[in-house]
C-alpha cells in the first residue's frame, strides 16, 4: 500500500524536475536562439520557402490570430474529408466504414481543437489511414498551435513597446519539430520496447488456449500513443485508451506516460520564468498549480485505495481498492494519479474508466477540468492561467487601492472586460450545455429507452452529462464513457462547445497581450503590486477556487456530491 503512494510521489517529483531544463529549452526555441536540434532548420526553411512564408516577419495579434484560424479551418476540412471517405481509401485492412456526417464533424473538431473527445471506438471506427494522416497529424499540429499561441503571449508580455508578437506559422512548425517530435520519438521507442505494437497488419484471428476464436485488433499504435500523451491530446488508438494493454502494456510504460502528460504543461511555467527572466514569478505560479493539483489528487487517491463501500457490504475484501474499470497492473493509486493528471492538463487520456471511479474521484476529475487552472494543456494551459492572473491582479489592485499593473504595464478596463468574458465563457458552455441536455432528458417521455444516453441512473447519470460538457469546454477529451454520445445532439452540441472552448480562451488572452504590448512601460516601483510574492500566490489560488466553487458547486452538488452521500459509509 505505502509503496504505491511512494511510487506516485516519485513519479510526480520526477516530472516536475525534468520539466525545469525542458522549460529553459522551450524558452530558447521561442526566442529563436541556438539549440541542439538546429539540424531541423534546413527542412523548416525549405517548407517556409515553398509556402512563401517569411518566418522572421513578425505580426500583430490580429494577423497572428487570422493565420491561426485559417490554418485550423483547413485542418478541419482535411479531417472531414478523410473521415467521410475512409472506407474508400487505402490502409484499411479491417474494412472500417465511413463516419456519418455528425460524427465526422465531431471527430474533426475534436482533434483540431486538441480535445480528442472520441464518440467512435478506434478499433471499429477509424482506418489506419485516418489514425495516422488525420489523428496522428492533428495531435501534433493542434498541440503545436497551443504552444505557438503561448509563445505569442510571452512575446507580448516581454515587449517594452510595439505591437508585434512573433510569427504564428514559424512558432507552430518549430513547436512541432523542435519540442513535440523529439519527445514523441523517445516515448514511442520506450513504448515499443515495452510491447506496444507498431504494425500495419490488420486484426489477427487466433484460437485461444481453451479453444475460443478471437479477433485481436492492433495496428500502428506506438507513434500515435506517444503524441497523444505528450501533446495533451488524449485521443487513443483503441476505445479504452491507455487502459488497453497494447497502448499501455506495463508499469514502466505507465510511468513514462504519466510523466509525458504533465511534463510540457509544467515546463511551460518554467519557460515563462526563463523567457521573461522572472523565475520567482514562475515559481509562485508553479506553487499555486502544485497546491491545487495536490488538493485534487490526494482525496482521489485516498478514496480509490479505500474501495467501494457498497462492495465492502457484500463481504468482499478490497486489498487493492476500487477495481471496477481499473487494471491490475496499474492499481488504484496510479490510476487515480492519472485520472487527475489527465483532467488537470486537458489531456484526456485514461488508464482506467473514470465513469466507474468513486464519487470523490469523479468530483475531483470534474473540478480539474472546470477550474482548468492547474497546469492545463500544452501552451493553452498557461493561457487559461493568464486570464486568472489578470483577474487576480485586478482584484488585488482594488483591495489595496492601486492601479493594477502587470510587468510594468497598466491593466485597464478593456483588458479586464476581456478577461472576464473569457473566464465566464467556460462556465457558460458547461452549465448551459448541461442544462439543455438535462432539460431534453427530463421532457422526453421514456427517455431511458428512447434517447439511450445514460448508462447509470440518478446522480451518476447527471454526472455523465455534466462531465461530457466539462470535458468539451476544457478541451479535455476524457469522458464518463457510459454516456451514449454518438448521437446528433451530443456530436453537434459538444462540437460547438469544443470550438468555443478552444478559440475564445486563445483569442481573448492574445488580444490582451497585444494591448499590453503596445502600452507604455513604466518600471516597477515600491508602489507596484508585487506579483512574485507569496501573498499574490494566495490571492491567485483564492480567485481560482472561489470563482470555481461559486460557479460549479450547484452542479457538483447534484452529481458526485449527492452520489457520495447516497453510498453507505
Amino acid at each position: 500500500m505505502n509503496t504505491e503512494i511512494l511510487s506516485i510521489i516519485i513519479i510526480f517529483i520526477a516530472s516536475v524536475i525534468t520539466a525545469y531544463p525542458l522549460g529553459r529549452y522551450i524558452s530558447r526555441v521561442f526566442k529563436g536562439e541556438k539549440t541542439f536540434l538546429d539540424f531541423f532548420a534546413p527542412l523548416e526553411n525549405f517548407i517556409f520557402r515553398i509556402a512563401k512564408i517569411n518566418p522572421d516577419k513578425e505580426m500583430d495579434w490580429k494577423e497572428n490570430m487570422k493565420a491561426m484560424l485559417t490554418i485550423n479551418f483547413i485542418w478541419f476540412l482535411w479531417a472531414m474529408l478523410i473521415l467521410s471517405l475512409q472506407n474508400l481509401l487505402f490502409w484499411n485492412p479491417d474494412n472500417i466504414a465511413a463516419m456519418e456526417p455528425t460524427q465526422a464533424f465531431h471527430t474533426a473538431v475534436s482533434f483540431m481543437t486538441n480535445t480528442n473527445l472520441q464518440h467512435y471506438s478506434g478499433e471499429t471506427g477509424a482506418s489506419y489511414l485516418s489514425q495516422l494522416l488525420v489523428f496522428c497529424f492533428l495531435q501534433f499540429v493542434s498541440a503545436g498551435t497551443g504552444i505557438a499561441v503561448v509563445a505569442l503571449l510571452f512575446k507580448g508580455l516581454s515587449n517594452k513597446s510595439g505591437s508585434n508578437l512573433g510569427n504564428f506559422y514559424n512558432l507552430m512548425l518549430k513547436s512541432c519539430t523542435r519540442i513535440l517530435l523529439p519527445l514523441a520519438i523517445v516515448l514511442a521507442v520506450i513504448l515499443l520496447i515495452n510491447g506496444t505494437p507498431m504494425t500495419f497488419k490488420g486484426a489477427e484471428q487466433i484460437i485461444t488456449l481453451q479453444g475460443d476464436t478471437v479477433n485481436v485488433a492492433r495496428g500502428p499504435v506506438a507513434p500515435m500513443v506517444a503524441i497523444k500523451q505528450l501533446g495533451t491530446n488524449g485521443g487513443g488508438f483503441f476505445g479504452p485508451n491507455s487502459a488497453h494493454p497494447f497502448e499501455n502494456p506495463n508499469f514502466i510504460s505507465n510511468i513514462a506516460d504519466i510523466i509525458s502528460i504533465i511534463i510540457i504543461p509544467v515546463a511551460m511555467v518554467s519557460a515563462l520564468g526563463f523567457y521573461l527572466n522572472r523565475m520567482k514569478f514562475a515559481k509562485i505560479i508553479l506553487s499555486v498549480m502544485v497546491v491545487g493539483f495536490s488538493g485534487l489528487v490526494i482525496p482521489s487517491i485516498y478514496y480509490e485505495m479505500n474501495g467501494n463501500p457498497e462492495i465492502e457490504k457484500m463481504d468482499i475484501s478490497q486489498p487493492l481498492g476500487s477495481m471496477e474499470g481499473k487494471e491490475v497492473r496499474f492499481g488504484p493509486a496510479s490510476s487515480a494519479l492519472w485520472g487527475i493528471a489527465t483532467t488537470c492538463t486537458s489531456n484526456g487520456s485514461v488508464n482506467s474508466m473514470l465513469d466507474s471511479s468513486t464519487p470523490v474521484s469523479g468530483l475531483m476529475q470534474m473540478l480539474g477540468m472546470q477550474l482548468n487552472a492547474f497546469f492545463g494543456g500544452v501552451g493553452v494551459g498557461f493561457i487559461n492561467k493568464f486570464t486568472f492572473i489578470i483577474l487576480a491582479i485586478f482584484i488585488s489592485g482594488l483591495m489595496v487601492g492601486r492601479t493594477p499593473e502587470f510587468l510594468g504595464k497598466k491593466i485597464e478596463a478593456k483588458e479586464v472586460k476581456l478577461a472576464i468574458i473569457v473566464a465566464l465563457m467556460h462556465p457558460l458552455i458547461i452549465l448551459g450545455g448541461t442544462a439543455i441536455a438535462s432539460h431534453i432528458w427530463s421532457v422526453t417521455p421514456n427517455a431511458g429507452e428512447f434517447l439511450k444516453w445514460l448508462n447509470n441512473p440518478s446522480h451518476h447519470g447527471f454526472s455523465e452529462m455534466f462531465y461530457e460538457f466539462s470535458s468539451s469546454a476544457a478541451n479535455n477529451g476524457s469522458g464518463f464513457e457510459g454516456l451514449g454520445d454518438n448521437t446528433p445532439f451530443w456530436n453537434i452540441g459538444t462540437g460547438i462547445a469544443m470550438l468555443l472552448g478552444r478559440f475564445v480562451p486563445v483569442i481573448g488572452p492574445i488580444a490582451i497581450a497585444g494591448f499590453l504590448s503596445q502600452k507604455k512601460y513604466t518600471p516597477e516601483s515600491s508602489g507596484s503590486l508585487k506579483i512574485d510574492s507569496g501573498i499574490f500566490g494566495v490571492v491567485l489560488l483564492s480567485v481560482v477556487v472561489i470563482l470555481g466553487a461559486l460557479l460549479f458547486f450547484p452542479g457538483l452538488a447534484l452529481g458526485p456530491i449527492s452520489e457520495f452521500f447516497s453510498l453507505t459509509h
Partner: protein
Amino acid sequence: MFKNLKQSLILTVFTIMLFGLIYPLFIFAVAQLMPDRSIGSPVTVNGKTIGFENIGQSFTDEKYFMGRPSAVGYNAASAGGSNKGPSNPDYLAEVQARIDTFIFHNPDVRKEDIPSEMVTASGSGLDPHISPQGACIQISRIAKKRNLNTDQLKELIRNNTEEPLLGLFGMKRVNVLKLNIALDKLK
C-alpha cells in the same frame, strides 16, 4: 486573406507528410528492431499462436485459472469497460451475481477471501492479470479437476508471480494466460 489561405495550405501539406507519414514510418523502422517486430508479443504453443502476452483471454473452463470479469467478454476486437458507476443498483446486483458464480465454481472459498478484482470488470475488458490472491483461491478447484496436489499449484503461482518493479512500482500480479500455459505443462 487569400495569401494566408495559400500559405496555410502548403504548410498543411508538408506537416501532414512529416507528422502523419514520415514520423510513423520512422517509428515503424525502429519497430523492426524489436524482438517480435512489434506485432503485439504473440504467444505460441506447439507452433500455433494462441494469444498475445498482454491481451487477456476468457477462461470459463473450470480446469483453468479464471481471469477477471470482462464487460466485453474479452472481445479483443472491441475492447471496453463496463462504465458502471459505484452506486448503480444494477451494477451492484451484477457484482453480487459474480460473487455467487465464483462461490459456485469454488465452493471451498469464503467470501471475505475473494479479492475485489475477481468480481469487478477491468477498464479494457482485456486485463491479462489477477492478483496472486485471486489465483490462490482457485487452487482447490483446479487441484480437484486435474488431480494435482495443492503444493504443486502454490509453487506454480509463486513462479508466475510478477513482482513490482524495484519492489516499488506496480502491483504483485499473475498473468493468467502464462499461468494456464504453465499449468497445462504440469503433469
